[in-house]
């Protein structure tokens, strides 16, 4: 196994995101006030209330069960939630806090999912898996749904270790190729009557940010000619209700932009397998220029001729070092998508539109 040095997401944050997907209204972090702070902010933008028990030195020594009980009672009083998640942290798990006992003592009306994970528990996906396991035990999701998602998350971990963020010891952030160079190539290809494919293989809400490439390419085709082929993991039948909602909203906006999907490769929480389905489809379908947006490395068979669009500077470094020179970054995607209810314009999309409208290329 590679010893990875660069920072990467942790199980605590993955648990928080998964609780959001399960539509928990409140997430209680049982730990130091700053733990998961940046992620908490994002989640609050998505409408989740994140509170902390704010453990202090003394709580490490003496335990903070009473604090947790108090916070839970307050949460009920203030927010009247139906579903509450408690996420453990390194601090609470090392000292062996008994989350279940605190829940019992707090006597909430709400259903509470206690996720006993922490920062040292393994890959970030382990926090998501633990959350889903607890949700299945509590009857919030079915056992089948739990097993399906667990399988996806386990595969995602393998893909990351094989060709993604955890495949290299250290990845230095890279800004990626310029959008102009890539957009020019796309518009030129269309102008020459070529066939351009856009494959969306995105993870959950980030699809709001990446799907704009499809709209922009379709727009360019309507102006300059050529042919397009769109496919993506946008099934409205797979995943938790919240995730299906994302797919519905994206499909609605694509339709409005006259984007026709030639293939739906899977659900928005299925990027590891959806990537494989996309690859099989693209083997049969000819395309002169191929664009992959979201997590391109999860699509087997991408080549250095392809255009890759992703959102993480370290991912860009990973792609560029592997010879994918035409990798561009939509660095702001994650910050913008949290409260989205429709496709957001992205930079590559806007560049394509500008080129078409301004008559460049």
């Amino acid at each position: 196994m590679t010893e990875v040095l660069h920072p990467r997401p942790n199980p605590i944050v993955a648990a928080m995101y998964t609780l959001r997907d399960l539509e928990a209204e409140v997430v209680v972090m049982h730990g130091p006030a700053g733990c998961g702070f940046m992620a908490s902010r994002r989640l609050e933008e998505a409408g989740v209330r994140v509170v902390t028990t704010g453990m202090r030195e003394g709580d490490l020594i003496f335990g903070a069960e009473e604090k947790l009980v108090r916070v839970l009672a307050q949460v009920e009083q203030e927010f009247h939630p139906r579903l509450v998640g408690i996420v453990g942290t390194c601090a609470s798990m090392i000292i062996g806090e008994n989350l279940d006992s605190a829940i019992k003592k707090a006597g909430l009306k709400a259903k509470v999912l206690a996720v006993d994970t922490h920062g040292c528990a393994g890959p970030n996906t382990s926090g998501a898996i633990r959350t889903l396991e607890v949700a299945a035990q509590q009857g919030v999701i079915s056992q089948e749904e739990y097993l399906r998602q667990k399988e996806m998350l386990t595969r995602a971990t393998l893909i990351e270790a094989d060709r993604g963020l955890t495949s290299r010891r250290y990845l230095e952030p890279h800004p990626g190729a310029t959008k102009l160079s890539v957009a020019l190539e796309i518009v030129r290809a269309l102008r020459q009557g070529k066939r351009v494919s856009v494959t969306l293989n995105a993870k959950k809400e980030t699809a709001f940010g990446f799907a704009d490439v499809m709209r922009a390419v379709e727009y360019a085709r309507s102006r300059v000619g050529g042919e397009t082929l769109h496919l993506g993991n946008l099934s409205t039948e797979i995943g938790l209700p919240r995730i299906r909602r994302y797919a519905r909203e994206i499909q609605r906006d694509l339709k409005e932009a006259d984007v026709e999907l030639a293939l739906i490769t899977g659900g928005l929480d299925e990027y590891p397998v959806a990537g494989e389905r996309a690859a099989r489809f693209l083997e049969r379908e000819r395309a002169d220029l191929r664009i992959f947006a979201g997590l391109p490395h999860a699509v087997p068979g991408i080549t250095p001729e392809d255009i890759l669009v992703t959102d993480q500077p370290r991912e860009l470094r990973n792609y560029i070092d592997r010879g994918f020179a035409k990798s561009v970054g939509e660095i702001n995607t994650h910050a913008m998508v949290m409260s989205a209810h429709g496709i957001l314009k992205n930079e590559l999309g806007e560049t394509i539109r500008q080129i078409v409208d301004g008559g460049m290329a």
Partner: protein
Amino acid sequence: MRQIAIYGKGGIGKSTISANVAAALAEKGLITWYVGCDPKSDGSMTLLRGQRAQAFLEMMKGTGQGKPYEVAVGYGGVRCVEVGGPLAGVGCAGRGIIVAVQALSKDHFSKENIDVIIYDVPGDVVCGGFAAPLRERYADEVYIVTSGEYLSLYAANNIAKGLRNLNVKLGGIICNSREVEGERNVVAEFASQIGTRMIAFIPRDPVVRECENQGMTVIECAPASAQASAYRSLAEAMMRNKDFALPRPMEPEDIRALLRGSMA
């Protein structure tokens, strides 16, 4: 499946009692597990003819998790697990117990056919880790080992406090005799004051050391001795026991008063 935790002051003889009880239960044909929770990992030695069981946490180390754990099989088929843990002054033994007990429960206790698990827990319920075996799905019965000496009674009383906090029931007090005066009465009185009873009085006998030096339990090494029958009747009393109560710890002052009374 009975899941029994044995607590008591360090050095009071918990491991000897736990190992001998495990041996006595196995002799009766029960599928018995001995789980030693001391980082030193030497509790099961007498069940294993002086051999050391591989420490569970050592096995986990480095791999993070995963590899199947080879459970050592000792006298009468007792499955011996030593949790292990950090060197003195390093890391956190309590966390080690939490992790090991969770993993053992997932990989073994919930899958295998087991009659009794005995947890030999070090010292005192001092932190979340040492209380781990008492978490709902693990040990649900507790016995406290003490002698008639003030410090062991004091520790026993502290453990009783821990149990009360954790809402765990106590099955009784085991007196491991130090041959102090009036010991039987003092311990019986202490037990009744905290709301339980003395379930056994284990006499002090040099045979225990002799057997230990040979790397065996008394049950194996001196099966016909009076000491062996003391352990056997304790094991039987535990199996028959239906008397469990939440303890009512005493004030240290009252323990001293109790001891003074026994002197008079």
